[in-house]
């Protein structure tokens, strides 16, 4: 629970710029973190609106509202916006806010680069969204951009490629900044194995980003030259190989899944001990498990393309290596459970979101194991079962992880407690409707409904209606979130430096809200040791 009323210990002698200059020229990690989070929230609602259109069209069989080409554009843009515009910037926003405060650093190591990384994003997504208004419409070949289909995109093709390059550049620069900060800016005494799990998961995520975002950039550069400069990297007619694109794309794409989810593991590893009032069980095992998952993510990519055709030995390798990921993932799930065992649990909104993450992400993990089985995958490929699987991983996984993180640290950022009752409503509505939305999609997929279609056979009607009702409920419930944040910032009850009694970590040693420039003097070893109570 929140600490009783305490004056906001904010002796603000900070000389911060005011007005638009504060944001446009921002180099302060907290300001940049806020901008990332606001941007991610905006993109979440734009991408979410597209999802509502998709579910509206799929409410009934037959074509109701959307032209099929526009429907395909919606599925393509929804994915690109949610992955690159909502979830990844949200993680970068949380990293910006929390990493310097958690490692005792005054700021990120490269503040101007930090500003540049952020300001690339609004241009990238304005560009991508502008493709809706060019002749031929927005890209509609799916976020995977498989050739030869994607090469048939009209005038929006170069817009797509350029915006992907911009998103990639932003991510790579952000990742460089995170690694350099963690490696070089830790307070004396903040050893690697004293770092909070959120910092660890972000460090590993940043290495993944450095390794795979350039691979995506390389793949789309080759698509660009195939389209405009007569090369035939992926054009069979010129001796190229379209399947090669799929291998390269998924070499990026599978680690990308872990880029989206690893920081959530870090958040859950912060939240569960706080609200269980116990140290995290098996801290070192958690670090090794995250590192193992990251390593394995590089050697499983072809499980996305079993039906493309590959030698039996390759199928076996990719099937078994994929299943191997269940081992470190199991370590994490059991460690979180063991942390709660005999703990003094309480169920504030961050804990509720973390618990829902634990249950529902595990469902997404299990359906992933089903998809890893080659002969079963032949049945499930390109059906709604796959849609259900990855949405369980990304919505109650990544998005709930972000919600848990925001509800956990919001009192620290604002110095005020949010409306706990309203946030609990937000949780329950989200948790119920997310299952109404995605669970029936397992049944639809097993019954053979293909993904990425605006129309379907009548036998799929009932579960599609249920799924769409879940989507509308989930979408409406999310409107509570910005209201809760706004209300908290305006009129929430003031909290002391430790908003949650069970919280540990350097960020909780700072006043709430923290000063504009925090940890100008590094924390003492005793403070670091007190924070690293794992």
């Amino acid at each position, binding site marked *: 629970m929140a600490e009783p009323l305490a004056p906001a210990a904010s002796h603000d002698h900070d000389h911060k710029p005011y007005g638009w200059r504060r944001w446009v020229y921002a180099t302060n990690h907290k300001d940049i973190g806020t901008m990332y989070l606001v941007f991610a929230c905006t993109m979440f609602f734009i991408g979410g609106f597209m999802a509502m259109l998709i579910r509206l069209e799929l409410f009934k069989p037959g074509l109701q509202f959307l032209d099929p080409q526009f429907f395909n554009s919606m599925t393509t843009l929804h994915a690109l916006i949610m992955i690159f515009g909502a979830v990844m910037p949200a993680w970068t926003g949380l990293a910006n806010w929390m990493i310097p405060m958690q490692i005792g650093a005054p700021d990120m190591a490269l503040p101007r680069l930090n500003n540049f990384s952020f300001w690339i994003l609004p241009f990238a997504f304005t560009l991508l969204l502008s493709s809706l208004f060019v002749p031929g419409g927005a890209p509609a070949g799916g976020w995977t951009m498989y050739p030869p289909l994607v090469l048939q995109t009209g005038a929006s093709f170069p817009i797509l490629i350029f915006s992907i390059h911009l998103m990639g550049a932003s991510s790579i620069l952000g990742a*460089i900044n995170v690694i350099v900060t963690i490696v070089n*800016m830790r307070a004396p005494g903040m050893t690697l194995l004293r770092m909070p799990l959120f910092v660890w998961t972000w460090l590993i995520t940043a290495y993944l980003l*450095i390794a795979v975002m*350039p691979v995506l950039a390389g793949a789309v*550069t080759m698509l660009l030259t195939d389209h405009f400069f007569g090369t035939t990297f992926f054009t069979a007619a010129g001796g190229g190989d379209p399947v090669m694109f799929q291998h390269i794309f998924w070499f990026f794409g599978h680690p990308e899944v872990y880029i989206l989810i690893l920081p959530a593991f870090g958040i859950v590893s912060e939240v569960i001990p706080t609200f269980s009032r116990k140290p995290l069980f098996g801290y070192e095992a958690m670090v090794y498990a995250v590192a193992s998952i990251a390593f394995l993510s590089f050697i499983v990519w072809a499980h996305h393309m079993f039906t493309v055709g590959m030698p039996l030995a390759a199928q076996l390798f990719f099937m078994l290596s994929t299943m191997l990921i269940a081992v470190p993932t199991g370590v994490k799930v059991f460690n979180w459970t063991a942390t709660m065992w005999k703990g003094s649990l309480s169920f504030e909104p961050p804990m509720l979101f973390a618990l829902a993450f634990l249950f529902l992400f595990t469902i997404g993990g299990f359906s992933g194991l089903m998809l890893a089985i080659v002969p079963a995958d032949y049945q499930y490929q390109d059906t709604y079962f796959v849609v259900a699987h990855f949405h369980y991983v990304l919505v109650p996984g990544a998005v709930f992880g972000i919600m848990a993180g925001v509800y956990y640290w919001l009192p620290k950022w604002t110095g005020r407690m949010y409306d706990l009752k309203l946030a609990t409503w937000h949780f329950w509505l989200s948790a119920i409707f997310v299952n109404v939305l995605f669970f029936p999609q397992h049944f639809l997929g097993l019954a053979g409904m293909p993904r990425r279609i605006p129309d379907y056979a009548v036998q799929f009607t009932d579960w599609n209606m249920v799924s769409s009702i879940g989507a509308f409920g989930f979408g409406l419930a999310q409107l509570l979130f910005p209201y809760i944040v706004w209300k908290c910032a305006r009129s929430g009850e003031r909290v002391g430096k430790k908003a949650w009694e069970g919280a540990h970590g350097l960020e909780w040693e700072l006043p709430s809200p923290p000063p504009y420039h925090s940890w100008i*003097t*590094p924390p*003492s070893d005793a*403070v670091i040791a007190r924070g690293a109570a794992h």
Partner: protein
Amino acid sequence: MPAHTSTVHAAPPDEAERRRRVRRSALLLALIAAAFYFGFILMTLVRGWK
């Protein structure tokens, strides 16, 4: 004294040396990223020639 202004802490590393390390590690990571970008394009090119 507030915890965040405690004076009991280990000696901070030399600031100039830290700046050098920041620059060096940022450049190294940028080079690794560039290597992945060009490496994958080169690999696809070489495969096409076979």
